[in-house]
């Protein structure tokens, strides 16, 4: 007999349900029909859900292009803050939100976090007021309470179809999608969270929209499709709470790194002679990073971080561990305990700020390419041997750079005999060269460990074409 059907229909008030009852699995809970519960959930979050239309300019193939996209979002406070995905609006320059009552209002980006693929927007309250539009704020629930089988609704704008609701259950509460997920352009995400898997239909356009439990609370942000049927993934809302806190406080999210990677302890405990739940195995150490400076080596076991025990038996646990580390304040001196050769060593790590692979792109139009500073993270990812220089992110077809053989991933380290440390320095040199109408530019480019000279030939006659002589008759 299906539990849903067997449930007693109770004409209890919504308030009573929310205030008085625990989650539905609680045996003391008062049961209401699924139908009714779904409507309750809808009524709580539906008026807080928006469609997000975002536009940004981005360099593609060395040229600035306007890009647009549609996603979803959820208003989470009375001030009109909207939570959505980074990949929907994280780099947006213009944003429009369509409220549940079909009113259209402008919004601006407050801050974003690619690591969790989240962004916070601010609705233009003046416009809201002027249009007499109303909205409601959704309640953020506790995602830690969600279990497999719990009913959920996904609300959003699949394929731009605003105000759509789909229905399902939590299929897995701690799905891992591997490390090193790509947000485009090599931007990493998903390193610090596990995912809710749900069979509630999630399609392109649902991104940023809320996943709602049957108590009418937002418990996740729908972020990824699974490439198959009935496979969608949402960032648990507890992960978003810290992101929201930091963005509202300082407009950005700061994270720490200690320069070490982990692997699960599972089945290695006998070899490493430790207990089954005693710590996480340190697999790899960034030779320049804080862990290396503290004397930590690969194959050591991290058993305690900042006074709290570490458990890393399963891959799922490593995401939490990474988040714990990343949430440590930047520059903090953190006591850690390491197990090595049967001994426990107390050490101290000084955390450093975790960067992303991206930094502001700088255009060098006459030279025909776009480049950026080399962040620590980019150097690590691309195996660059220095953070000095300019990393080429795009090359314009047919322009000087391409003709001379400059390619994406090249690192410009010198112009003529002058060293180049970053994109701003290169821009100064570039500006001076353009002013002086320098026709030949020698760039020294790092490719792997090699240094290659590249000569650009620049022409300056654009727009000054000699007038064609009048044809004499």
């Amino acid at each position, binding site marked *: 007999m299906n539990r849903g059907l067997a449930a007693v229909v109770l004409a209890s008030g919504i308030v009573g349900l929310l205030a008085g009852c625990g989650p539905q699995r609680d045996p003391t809970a008062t049961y209401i029909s699924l139908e009714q519960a779904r409507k309750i959930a809808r009524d709580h979050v539906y008026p807080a859900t928006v469609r997000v239309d975002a536009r940004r300019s981005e360099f593609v193939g060395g040229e600035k292009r306007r890009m647009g996209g549609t996603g979803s979002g959820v208003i989470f406070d009375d001030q009109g803050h909207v939570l959505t995905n980074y990949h929907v609006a994280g780099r947006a320059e213009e944003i429009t939100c369509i409220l549940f009552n079909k009113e259209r209002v402008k919004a601006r980006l407050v801050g974003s976090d690619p690591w969790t693929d989240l962004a916070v927007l601010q609705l233009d309250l003046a416009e809201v007021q002027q249009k007499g539009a109303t909205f409601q704020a959704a309640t953020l629930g506790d995602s830690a309470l969600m279990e497999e089988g719990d009913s959920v609704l996904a609300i959003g704008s699949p394929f731009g179809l605003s105000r759509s609701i789909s229905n399902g259950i939590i299929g897995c509460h701690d799905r891992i999608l591997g490390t090193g997920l790509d947000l485009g352009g090599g931007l990493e995400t998903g390193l610090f969270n596990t995912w809710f898997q749900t069979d509630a239909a999630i399609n392109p356009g649902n991104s940023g929209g809320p996943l709602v439990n049957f108590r009418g609370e937002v418990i996740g942000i729908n972020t990824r499709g699974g490439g198959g049927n009935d496979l969608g993934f949402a960032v648990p809302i507890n992960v978003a709470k810290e992101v929201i806190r930091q963005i509202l406080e300082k407009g950005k999210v700061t994270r720490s790194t200690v320069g070490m*990677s982990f*692997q699960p302890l599972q*089945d*290695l405990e*006998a*070899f490493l002679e430790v207990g089954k739940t005693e710590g996480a*195995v340190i*697999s*790899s*150490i960034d*030779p320049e990073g804080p862990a290396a400076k503290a004397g930590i080596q*690969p*194959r050591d076991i991290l058993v305690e971080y900042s006074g709290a025990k570490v458990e890393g038996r399963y891959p799922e646990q490593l995401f939490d561990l990474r988040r714990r580390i990343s949430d440590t304040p930047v520059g903090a001196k953190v006591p850690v305990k390491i197990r090595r050769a049967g001994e426990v060593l107390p050490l101290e790590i000084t955390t450093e700020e975790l960067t992303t692979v991206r930094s502001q792109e700088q255009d060098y139009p006459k030279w025909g390419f776009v480049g950026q500073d080399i962040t620590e993270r980019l150097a690590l990812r691309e*195996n660059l041997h220095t953070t000095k220089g300019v990393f080429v992110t795009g090359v314009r077809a047919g322009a000087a750079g391409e003709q*001379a053989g400059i390619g994406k991933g090249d690192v410009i380290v010198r112009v003529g005999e002058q060293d180049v440390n970053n994109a701003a320095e290169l821009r100064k040199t570039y500006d001076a060269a353009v002013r002086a109408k320098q026709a*030949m530019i*020698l760039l*020294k480019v790092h*490719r*792997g*460990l*090699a*240094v*290659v*000279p590249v*000569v650009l*030939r620049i022409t300056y006659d654009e727009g000054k074409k000699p007038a064609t002589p009048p044809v004499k008759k």
Partner: protein
Amino acid sequence: MRTCTMTVWAAVIVAVTSAAGPLRADPIAEQIRKAREAALNSSVVVSYYVERDDGVRADIRMLGTVVGPDNLVMFTSAAISSQFALSQFHDFKLIVTKGDDIQTYAAEYLGKDDLAQVAFLRVTDPKAPKLPPLEFQTGVTLEIGDPVLSFTSLGEPDGYARVIHLSRVGARIDQPVTLWLTAEGLGAPGTPVVTLDGKAMGIVGFTRLNRGTNARPNWSLGEVIWPAERFMERLKNPPKGGSLVKRPWIGVQTVTPVTKDLAEYYKLGDRRGVVIGQIVEGGPAEKAGIKAEDLILALDGKDLKGTEGQLVENFTNNLRERKIGDTVAMEIWRAGKTETLKVTLVQEPKSAAEAERYKNTQVGLGVREMVTMDRLQRELPASESGVVVSFLDPAGWARDGGLQAGDIVKKVQDQDVKTLADFRRVFDAEIKKKPKEIVLFVLRGKKDTQLVRIETHWDAAEKPKADTPGAPKPDAGGDKKPVEKKSDAGAPPRAEKAPK
């Protein structure tokens, strides 16, 4: 003298076989019939098989040419792929055909020279008859439009019947060495190219020109006639014992041409050369004082020449054709000044194909020693040590444990393995203990390290048919090493040609 007799004899055969007479008098046909004979008499089929790392066997047949006394046979070096270690090539044989009569004789592989594009074997079977060698001639210059013959054959079911290609010379290329191109098809790689007056002046070769590196439309890719000058010396002095003819090496990487623009920027006038991008630690170039970013303009006082597309090849080719131990005076341009540095050529480092290997079929892994190229490709310091995982049984324990091809194993059960000998010693000793698990410490990619735990199932491996309840089941429940015997004898030997 002997060749003369052969020619006469061949002429008689032509006369006999063409007794019926051509329908029309065709002087070209007559010339072809004459010119083909010597090459056909020396034409043989080379047969062997390669045992791939995964245990699958691939049979290979191709045309070879008898080129010396004691049944010395030459064939294209491309057939001995550098992907495989010498120990993976087996069962070299020579197949000699005379009409329907097909005889097979055991042979010994002697070695190859990739620069000369030739490989050799010698018949060891005492029952083998003395086969007539083909004499190659140097100094033959072809003109555009000259007709040439080359050869290919049908497969085993058709008695390896030979097919003659008639093609005309379409172009002459002089860089880095003189060779000719035809726009029409030539025969199988390594087969002789014969002029219509019967001179075997080269073989069907392959260079960057027909290796298809340029995917641009309308760029005609010719077939290459590789002149005898390029391999004559090797033919007189063939390699021994399956060796790879080693070439000189100076230890530089990422060599790029001095382009017209770069020459102008540096005010080099008409001089050209190459730019050194990277110096290999401890190599001859470093010892001689050459640095990254140096330009090399001349070798032994002779300026480097060629188009931008040819300069680098000319430079490397010039060095590779010299003798190991020789000293080359290199004119270096650095920051506006030139100087001459003397570089002593050393033997090129061991390739991955030559690397020694170790295989354990029970654990399902194969490793090989790390070679210089591994370090260079992965940007590892010269001090990096370990062995490279070269083979994983698709259903083996090692693969199940998460080991990946290309991983560099640095430790086995916490014991350092710096060399293949270390690995062999440590691994064999561990295996004898039949441990429940083997834990390796590996470097994956360029910098990530991790532990890889290989779970063993000794009981199941020893009793593969054991079906008793409770006993661990054997992996995949079947044959671990499928031997997919490729019976592609009918496939034309052309299949071995580098893809276009």
